[in-house]
Structures are given as structure tokens and as C-alpha cells.
């Protein structure tokens, strides 16, 4: 049973993505018999190129995707470099957890209000200048995609920070730093020269995942990106949902282009890695102590804190809107307070909340079982999975969602599964499973083998060892992994839209739909709930082990 677990898991991940990709690639070359496309042609690609805004859409996708990735990498690295070993470092670790739990779209919605010409920051400025009308300037949804880049940074920087923290646990960073410092290197530069090269291989895949996400993002782009033309992702989505059937074909081409773009971007990034590594070796060997740049690096390291503050303000703003009676420009705070918006929305909220919860719980549960089965199989048989397995696991996070979800929808309709719970749970599992597996793998592989051997010597069966020794010991990481899975599921937009056939409303799909221009008070409720639900689960995951282990303090520490 256990032996087939890795096979089942990979099939569950890879097969649908492969089928989905085929279902998108074929129509992009004109082949989709159901819509009368029986011959291969380059027509869809010609149509895509002929779209008046094609050049801008492509440029926008590339610029925002690449810039967001480079900036988040740079900020994450500088932050770690300046704070490593400092008291702020632990606080930072604690501060990013709640941000990581919140869906991207919820933060984007709040951020949009924060930076809008009539938003909170502008109101703050207006309270000084005395302006009674918002300035006629473009901040949100700007043609250059700056707002979109900033919105992406809000989540990508904490994500990369988390990945760096995890990688730091795998190496004796403290000692390496101490030696470098004793040789006279400034703290930040010591980290960059000594620690970064050693952890980079471990954060490579997460960086590619950030690159993939930023290049092809749809929900955040709908909220913060320009609309005429939008980046490629929202453009493809718009065409997929056009009643003129013939737009299916260029939409498929645009979705495929997303994939090609990603492959090119990763190849380019890889080349860049080689070049930087060469230059870096020379740079490190040259031995500059970097004391002069230290103050500058220190300042740059504060950007992460700024981003965290912006996220917190975004959430706070949405919370205020949800209880505001009226809040017009240039008032800094609502002029009246009311709970009426909540009570009026309560009935309508129940269904999306239910769907969100059920979907997240079920997909997380399945993901946990599969991940545990794989890890347990690995441990019992003494396997050491290579880098290839890791790449396979990352596939759903690397392939642009829109490139396979459209094709997958056609497959689902053929199987008569579209718009069913099965399809929906599967589509969420695709994204929940990798995250659950990744957050569980390290603690599981680090279980002290002596404990297992001792239990075995006492005559415990492997099953008993699992339930009596490993699972209780692993309660904390297990719950943490579950919280991660839950948060990932809550935040999914495109998979819910496609696999659910639009019939299933989750808090995220509702919030993104409303962000198009509904009443800010109602958007506020949705964004707030969207953010609070995973936070609540995080809090439970943190608190539960302390309660369960109140009589077993040593064990709690051991995990």
C-alpha cells in the first residue's frame, strides 16, 4: 500500500497537468474539434499578435514578473544580511507568518485602497495640504505595472524570507558569520559573501516559483494591474470567457505564450546565476570588507519591515471599511460607524465561507495523508529522493496556472467532472500538496532515528511506531503544514474558477469579483474574512500543541 504512495501522488500531480497542457497547446495551433478546429494552423498565434495591445501586454507581463522576482530576492537577501543574528531577526520571523497566511488577493485589495489617489496615504497627505479632491494621478492600475510589482512584493518577500530561514537551519550559519566577522567583514557583507552562496541552491526552486507566479499572475493583476491592455494572464482569461467562440484559440495561444515566457525566464535566470557565481567568486576572493556600504545595506534591509507595515495597514484599512458607515475623501477615518454591513452580508457570506472551509479542509486532509504516506515510505525503505523528485513536486507551482487550467477544464468536461466537488478538490490539491509536503519533509526527515530504533527494539510494529512515536512528536510540524495547506487553498482563485465552473463561490473568488468596483465596505468584509480565516487556523496550529503537550514539555521542545 505504502509503496504506491509516491506513484499515486506524482500521478495525481503530473498527469492532469500534462493533460491540461495538451488541452491548451492543441487549440493554440487551431486544433479543437468541438469548436470546429480540425486542422492545425498558426491562425491563433497570428490573431494574438494582431491584437492591438499585444506588445504592451507582453511587455507588462515580462517587466512586472521579472522586476517583482528580482526585487523580492534582493530585499529578502538584504533583510537577512542586515538582521541575521540581531534581535530583530526573531521578531521578523514571527511577523512574516501571518502575512504568509493571508491570500495574495486580500492583501492586494487592501493595498489598492492604501495607495489609490483617494486612498489612505493620499488622505494623510491631504490632511497636510488641505486638498479636498484627490489628485488626478495614476497610482493603482498604472500602465507601467508599478502597483502590481509592489503588490507582488508584499507576499513574495515574506515567502522568500521563510525559505531562507528554512535553508539557514541546514547550515552552521552562526559559526560562518562569526569567523567572517572576526576577519573584519561588515555584518551584512559577511552574510552575502559567506552565507548566501551556501544557501542559494536551496532557495533556487522557491525563486523559480516566485518567477513563475509573478510572470503569470491573474488575480492580483486584475486588482492592481492596468486594464487596457492587461498583462497576458488576465488577457487570456478575458478571452477564454468571451462568448465569441473564436477567441478560445488566441486565448489558448496567449496561455501557451505564458509557458514559453516562463521557460525562457528560468533559462535566463539560470544563465544569470552562472555569470553572477563567476563574478561573485572573484568579488569574494578580492576580500573587500564592505564597511563603507554597511549603512546603505542597513537601510535597504528595512524595506522588508516597510512591506510588512504596508500589509498590516492594508488589512487594517479593510477592517475599518467593513464597519464604516460613510468614509469619503479626505476623511482620515470613517465619519460614522456601523455593523449594518456585516449583518446585511451575513446571509450571503455563509455559502462562500462554507465552501472555502470545506474545500480547504478536505484538500489539506488529503494532501496530509499523501505527504505522510510518501515520507513514511521513504523513511521505512531508507530512500533519499533526489533533486528530480523535488522538481516534479514543484511542477504545479512552476507551470503557469492558466496554461494548463483551460485544457484541464476541457478534460474535466469530457469526464463529466467539471463543476463537481471532485474536480474542485483535485484542483486545490495540486497546489496544496506541494506546500504541505515541503513544509513536512524536513522535520519528518530529521526525526531522530534512535527513537525509532528504540521503539522497534521494544517490539513496536512500524504502524505502532508511526502512531505512538512519530505522529505525537510531529504534532507541531503536522499542524503547521496543515495551516499552510489551508492558507494555500483559501487563496486560490483561478483553479476555483476553472475547475468549479464558476459554480462554487469561495471568499477569494467573491473578493476578486467584488474588487472590480463594488462598495468598499463590502469588499472590506470579504478581504478581511479572507485574511482572518487562515490566520485563525494558524493560531490554532500554534496553540494546539502547547495545550496537548502541557504535561509533556520536553517533547514539545524536542519537536
Amino acid at each position: 500500500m505504502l509503496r504506491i504512495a509516491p506513484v499515486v501522488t506524482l500521478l495525481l500531480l503530473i498527469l492532469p497537468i500534462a493533460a491540461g497542457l495538451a488541452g491548451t497547446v492543441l487549440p493554440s495551433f487551431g486544433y479543437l474539434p468541438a469548436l470546429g478546429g480540425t486542422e492545425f494552423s498558426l491562425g491563433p498565434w497570428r490573431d494574438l499578435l494582431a491584437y492591438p495591445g499585444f506588445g504592451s501586454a507582453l511587455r507588462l507581463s515580462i517587466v512586472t514578473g521579472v522586476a517583482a522576482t528580482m526585487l523580492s530576492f534582493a530585499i529578502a537577501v538584504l533583510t537577512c544580511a542586515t538582521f541575521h543574528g540581531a534581535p530583530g531577526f526573531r521578531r521578523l520571523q514571527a511577523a512574516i507568518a501571518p502575512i504568509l497566511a493571508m491570500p495574495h488577493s486580500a492583501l492586494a485589495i487592501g493595498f489598492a485602497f492604501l495607495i489609490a489617489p483617494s486612498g489612505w496615504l493620499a488622505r494623510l497627505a491631504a490632511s497636510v495640504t488641505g486638498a479636498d479632491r484627490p489628485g488626478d494621478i495614476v497610482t493603482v492600475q498604472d500602465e507601467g505595472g508599478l502597483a502590481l510589482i509592489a503588490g507582488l512584493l508584499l507576499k513574495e518577500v515574506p515567502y522568500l524570507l521563510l525559505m531562507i530561514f528554512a535553508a539557514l537551519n541546514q547550515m552552521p550559519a552562526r559559526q560562518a558569520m562569526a569567523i567572517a566577522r572576526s576577519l573584519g567583514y561588515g555584518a551584512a557583507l559577511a552574510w552575502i559573501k559567506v552565507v548566501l552562496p551556501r544557501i542559494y541552491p536551496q532557495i533556487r526552486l522557491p525563486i523559480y516559483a516566485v518567477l513563475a507566479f509573478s510572470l503569470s499572475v491573474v488575480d492580483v493583476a486584475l486588482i492592481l494591474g492596468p486594464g487596457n491592455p492587461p498583462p497576458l494572464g488576465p488577457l487570456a482569461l478575458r478571452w477564454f470567457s468571451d462568448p465569441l467562440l473564436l477567441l478560445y484559440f488566441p486565448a489558448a495561444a496567449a496561455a501557451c505564450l505564458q509557458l514559453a515566457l516562463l521557460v525562457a525566464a528560468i533559462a535566463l535566470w539560470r544563465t544569470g546565476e552562472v555569470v553572477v557565481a563567476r563574478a561573485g567568486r572573484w568579488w569574494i576572493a578580492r576580500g573587500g570588507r564592505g564597511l563603507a556600504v554597511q549603512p546603505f545595506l542597513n537601510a535597504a534591509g528595512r524595506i522588508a519591515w516597510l512591506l510588512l507595515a504596508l500589509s498590516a495597514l492594508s488589512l487594517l484599512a479593510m477592517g475599518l471599511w467593513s464597519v464604516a458607515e460613510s468614509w469619503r475623501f479626505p476623511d482620515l477615518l470613517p465619519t460614522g460607524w456601523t455593523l449594518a454591513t456585516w449583518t446585511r452580508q451575513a446571509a450571503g457570506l455563509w455559502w462562500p465561507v462554507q465552501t472555502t472551509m470545506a474545500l480547504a479542509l478536505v484538500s489539506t486532509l488529503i494532501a496530509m495523508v499523501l505527504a505522510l504516506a510518501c515520507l513514511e515510505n521513504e523513511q521505512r525503505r531508507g530512500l533519499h529522493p533526489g533533486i528530480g523528485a523535488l522538481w516534479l513536486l514543484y511542477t504545479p507551482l512552476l507551470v503557469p496556472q492558466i496554461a494548463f487550467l483551460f485544457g484541464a477544464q476541457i478534460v474535466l468536461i469530457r469526464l463529466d467532472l467539471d463543476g463537481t466537488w471532485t474536480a474542485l478538490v483535485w484542483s486545490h490539491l495540486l497546489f496544496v500538496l506541494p506546500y504541505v509536503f515541503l513544509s513536512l519533509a524536513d522535520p519528518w526527515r530529521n526525526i531522530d532515528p534512535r527513537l525509532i530504533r528504540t521503539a522497534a527494539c521494544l517490539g513496536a510494529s512500524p504502524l505502532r511506531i508511526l502512531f505512538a512515536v512519530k505522529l505525537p512528536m510531529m504534532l507541531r510540524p503536522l499542524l503547521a503544514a496543515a495551516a499552510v495547506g489551508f492558507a494555500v487553498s483559501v487563496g486560490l482563485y483561478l483553479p476555483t474558477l476553472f475547475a468549479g465552473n464558476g459554480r462554487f463561490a469561495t471568499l477569494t473568488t467573491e473578493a476578486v469579483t467584488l474588487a472590480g468596483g463594488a462598495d468598499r465596505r463590502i469588499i472590506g468584509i470579504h478581504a478581511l474574512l479572507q485574511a482572518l480565516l487562515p490566520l485563525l487556523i494558524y493560531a490554532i496550529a500554534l496553540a494546539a500543541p502547547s495545550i496537548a503537550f502541557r504535561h509533556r514539555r520536553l517533547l514539545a521542545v524536542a519537536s
Partner: protein
Amino acid sequence: MKRFVLAVCAVLLGSSVFGLARAQPWPDILAKARGQTMFWNAWGGDDKTNAFIAWVGDEVQKRYGVTIRHVRLRDTAEAVTRVVAEKAAGRNQGGSVDLIWINGPNFVAMKEQGLLFGPFTGLLPNYRFVDFETKPSNLVDFTVPVDGLESPWRLAQIVFIHDAARTKDMPRSIPALLDWARRNPGRLTHPSVGNFLGATFLKQALYELTPDPAMLQKPATDENFAKATAPLWVWYDQLLPLLWRQGRQFPETGPAQRQLLNDGDIDILISFNPSEAAVSIAGGLLPNTARTFVMDRGTIGNTSFVAIPYNAANKEAAMVVADFLLDPIVQAKAQDPAVLGNVTVLDLRKLTAEQRNMFEAVPRGAATPTPAELGRVLLEPHASWMTRIAAEWTKRYTR
């Protein structure tokens, strides 16, 4: 050819289903509908409408045992696409869309492709109250005959809203609007042209600017389109740089503009709901000084309908909801500015005195224009004009 064959099959299938439906008396439909969960696909961008749909859901649950799931769409076209995709996959029964809030190009596309169930309106007991005399848009949707394939539920007419405390002497014609924008640069915008309201704004301008408005009732062709719209583009080229954000950015939807007006970002709001101002004041979304104005030569009006896809899984429940929407009690409630501020599709003369009183008891408020102030209703141009205008706008102004 293949599509043609498919279409013929669908029509044949549709008509056979229709034959079955016609044989069903209303009590049988009610009996079948009980216990069904139906998926109403409706644009979800307006909170008042969402709340109204939720209320309808509660009521039909209580009265008829029908459960409504409101599938909130960003664009009605999404629902059309879904039915198209299902048809392409051969799912001619048990479809996922039961009822669509629809009109105009989406209706025309579905009707032409044989994707609609019916005619069914003759089966609805309350359909007899519908006003066909003074509200022709209840029978002709964007010049295309309704043929019983969709049932009306609310009337829409273009109005403009401003804050009387900030702006006075509003323009009453399309050329005057350009002059106004010259004096007030950056204070006017319109919803994105991909949105129905944005496209309708351009059609409204076209009505006043085109040499022969009667032409708009015929389908647009390559020849007549270029000629009829030439003055529109001349006008728009001058207007564009005077718009909010120099015309480089547009609010996505109608309600998004409302936020802009409330914040003082813009001075004029375009709406399809004649009582938008009153509704928004009641909801705390616009200041009490919001007022409505229209164009002297009339503004475009149309009817919002609900239609049932040919493969809907819960046709009976869909019909029960369509009928409930026409119930005088429901229409009177919807007319209340605290609810929807709806303009009813019913002919009040066909109602009993008691029913009429329900409509007359609803307060109007200073922000809502009287029928006389609303002025002439211009019939929607043929749907092809909307499609072509949106495409041409994209071609001209997307960089």
C-alpha cells in the same frame, strides 16, 4: 458546416423540450421545482442587486421550496461561455447554468446558436401583467424579438448623476458634454468599454452624433458602420485627453465610478438605473446632494431579462424564479430605493387597485427623476453595433 449542424441539432432538441414544457401546467411545474437547487448566473458587481437576489432566494425557498445559488459573474459572457463549452462537450442535459440575467449581445448570441430553452414565458402566470405597450423593450431586445425565450424583470435607462453641492448647470447633450469636459478637464470618465455600461455610453453618444439614427436599428455592416460612427470618433478623439486620468485608465464597472464620484475624483457618474442617486444616498454611497440629469434628446433604455439555457438541469425551478420576479409584490418591493430602486416592467393598469397602491406607496425622493423628467427612451441599437463599437474602440485606443 459542423457548427451549423450542431446548431440545427440544438434547435431540434430545444423545440422537443419545449413541446414537453408546454404540455406542463403550472401546478406540475411548481411540484417539480420543489426541492430543486437552481444556479442563477447573474452579474455580481452590484451589492444592492446581490442583496435583492439573496432576498428572492429566501422567499422562493419559503414559498416554493426552491433553493437559489447566486453564481456571481464578473461578466455575463462567462455564463454564455459555460453553456457553449458544455454544448461543445456534448452535455445537452444536466447543464450547470439554470438561469441567466441577460440581455443584448449575450441574448442574441445564445438565441442565434440555439442555446436557449423555450419559449417559456407563456407558461408563467405573472407574465400577463407585463407592459408591452409603453415599454417596447420588453418584447424587442436590442432589436431582436424576444420570442418568449427570456422573461423581463427590470427596466434600465441611462441617467447621469452629479453632486449638486459641487457642480451646477450640467450638460444636456453629447456635444455640450464635450464643452463641459473642456471647462472641467479630468472630471469626467466612463466605465471601461469592455463593460456593457461603457459601451452603452458610446452608443448614447453615437445616437446624437450619427447622421441617421434609424440606421442603428439595422445590423451593423462594414459599410454602414464606418459611415455612421465617423462623427463619434471625431468627438471621442477630442474628449479622450480631457477625461479622468487623460483617458489612460477607466473604472471597470458602473459601481466603480460611484466610488470615484463619492471621493470627488470625478463629477459625473453614468448609470443604467434611473433611481441610482436615491439608492446610493440611501446606502451611504453618495452624498445627500447627489442629483440626476438626462440628455434632452433622450437616453438609451432597455430591459433586463432572465433566460434559461437549453440544457439547464433545473428548468422548473428556473421558471418559478422567473415568474416570482414578475410578481407584483416583488416588483413593488424592488421599486423601493432602499432595495433596488427598480423601474417596474409591469403595466400598472393591468393590476388591481390594491396592487397598484403598493407601487404608489413607495417614496420617490428628491434625487429620483419623475417619468416626465426622465424624458424619451431611445431604443437600443442592434446588438452588432455594440460589439463593433467595442472592437473598434479597442483597435483605436489600446496601446
